[in-house]
């Protein structure tokens, strides 16, 4: 482990040395909580002599509203849901990224997601991390075989022992998959079937919980299953409670991905690009994957060289080819469908 740390630090210093001569300053990044781990940010700050100011947000809408109300130059870097990159591009918020600076050739091919990160052939963002919205469960309390079948997960057998992740897109994606509907094929006509499955889930669920509440519920035994959970939910608990695990059922599951880009209004674009390069480098990816906030698979497959066997085991590194083949990116509805889906979700919660 120590040798790995030394190698990681040494490689980081060498990799970042080229840019170290850059001017000192500050970089302002609007991020998800996994970027706030000092273990991820400090090596970059030290190498470039720059202070990275981080602000967390939840929900693309909140982030875009914040950016639109900020002064030009307030923000340099944006981490955004992979399916929402086009919204930031439409709003003119993201700057083109230099393709040659991005190590996408080393990425797991399924998560390069050029169709999401590029518009009209111009790259505006790059995938940095991904994972699954699937089934997390307590292996001591439920039959793991049942977790291989989505309809068994929310069957009467587990009545009151389920929590549903509180985000409508991945959960409705799972409901679609349970009905044999591709997440990319969800439309107004398929919402009836999805709504019916959501209703079944809701009837069996003890709660509909956000990240912390779902982790708490699973860890305290309040529930035994989290529908929509995954490695991001259980990995940080794995050391103390190895019985908390996750799986991808036979029908498949939903895949999430987050992207990172540089803001068009940034006055520190060169440094911002360096930050993106660091985050997508194998070393940065290994740190991001095992961030203290939540774990997830690094987009860059070479990050595996900087992860321990135990970390890779928790992330199910060796199963990724199978998981990537059996999962679908979660729904990316257009505005009208998004409103319909959100209304259906809220209607279901209020039943």
């Amino acid at each position, binding site marked *: 482990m120590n040798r790995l740390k030394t190698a990681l630090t040494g490689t980081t210093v060498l990799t970042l040395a080229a840019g170290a001569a850059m001017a000192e300053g500050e970089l302002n990044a609007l991020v998800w909580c996994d970027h706030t781990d000092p273990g991820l940010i400090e090596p970059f700050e030290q190498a470039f002599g720059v202070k990275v100011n981080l602000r967390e947000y939840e929900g*693309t809408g909140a982030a875009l509203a914040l950016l639109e109300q900020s002064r030009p130059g307030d923000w340099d870097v944006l981490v955004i849901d992979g399916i929402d990159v086009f919204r930031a591009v439409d709003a003119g918020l993201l700057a083109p990224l230099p393709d040659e600076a991005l190590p996408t050739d080393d990425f797991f091919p399924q998560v390069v997601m050029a169709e999401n990160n590029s518009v009209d052939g111009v790259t505006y963002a790059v995938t940095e991390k991904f994972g699954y919205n699937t089934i997390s469960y307590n292996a001591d309390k439920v039959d793991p075989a049942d977790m291989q079948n989505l309809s068994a997960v929310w069957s009467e057998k587990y009545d009151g022992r389920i929590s549903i992740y509180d985000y409508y897109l991945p959960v409705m994606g799972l409901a679609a998959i349970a009905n044999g509907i591709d997440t990319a094929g969800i439309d107004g006509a398929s919402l009836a079937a999805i709504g019916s499955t959501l209703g079944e889930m809701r009837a069996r669920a003890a709660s509909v919980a956000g990240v912390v509440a779902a982790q708490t519920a699973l860890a305290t035994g309040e529930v035994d299953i989290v529908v929509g959970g995954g490695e991001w939910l259980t990995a940080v608990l794995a050391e103390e409670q190895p019985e908390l695990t996750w799986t991808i059922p036979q029908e498949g599951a939903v895949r999430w991905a987050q992207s990172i880009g540089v803001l068009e209004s940034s006055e520190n674009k060169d440094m911002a690009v360096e930050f993106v390069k660091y985050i997508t480098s194998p070393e940065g990816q290994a740190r991001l994957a095992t961030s203290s906030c939540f774990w997830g698979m690094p987009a860059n497959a070479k990050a595996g060289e900087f992860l321990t066997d135990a970390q890779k085991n928790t992330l199910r590194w060796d199963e990724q080819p199978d998981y990537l083949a059996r999962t679908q990116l979660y729904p990316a509805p257009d505005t009208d469908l998004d409103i319909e889906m959100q209304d259906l979700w809220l*209607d279901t919660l209020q039943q």
Partner: protein
Amino acid sequence: MSTGHQRLKGPGFVTPALIWTFAFFVVPFLVMGTMSLATLEGRTLVWGLSLANYAELTEKAYLWRAIMVSLEITLTVTVVSVILAYPLAWIIAYRIPPRWQRLALLLAILPFWTSYVVRSYAWLLVLAREGVVNQTLISMGLISEPITLANTRFATVTGFVHFFVMLLTLTIYANLVQLSPNYRRAAMDLGASAFQTFRHVVLPLTLPGIVTGAFLTFVLCIGDYVTPQILGGNTELTVPQVIMVQLGRRADFPLASALAIVLMAIVTLVYILSARWLRLDRL
């Protein structure tokens, strides 16, 4: 000269308060009101004078349901908190020796010192299936299986009541200690029983304290997001929770503003109904 000087004193004292109110209440309220009349077309905000967002209250059942849920929870919390706070305030005011009253009040407000979020999560653990309450009931033989307490309306109400009983105790206590003991003595001298004294003398005279505390409880409770989000488990949604959903992904500020205006209208209505007894100056 001195009359003119004095004439200027009034506006001089009032102006800072007026500026403050204008900047931090009137302007935001006008912005929110204007925003509630705008619409979100696709992802574009279109300014106008549309009532479409208000019309959605009748078109979308979950919005109306959220208002009902908010009202039901808030009224329950207010009534339960008053019922629990009054005896507590009474005991502190009349049964505890004056030299211990300050300590008693300190103990009553002690839970205020912890973070609101931490306190809510603590309740979640207390009410969990493996939590203190269930384990105690099982060990006493009162139940054989854990019962569902967390992630329910009961949990939300419990978390709220824990917080607001303290607030109400303070407002009612402040009213009770201002009440001259001669009123009670006179009533007793005239042959009233202890209950009659309370019913016809003390209770009416302490009504302003009760209503003031109840109004504050209502206002704070109906607009709260944290407690129902953590303790309610999203098994039903209140208006603030629905507002957050509108903002989170779609950034539907017009609909969120309309919902906020509805909340404000409800609070205003409650204020009008209780204005007769309100004594906010006694806080």
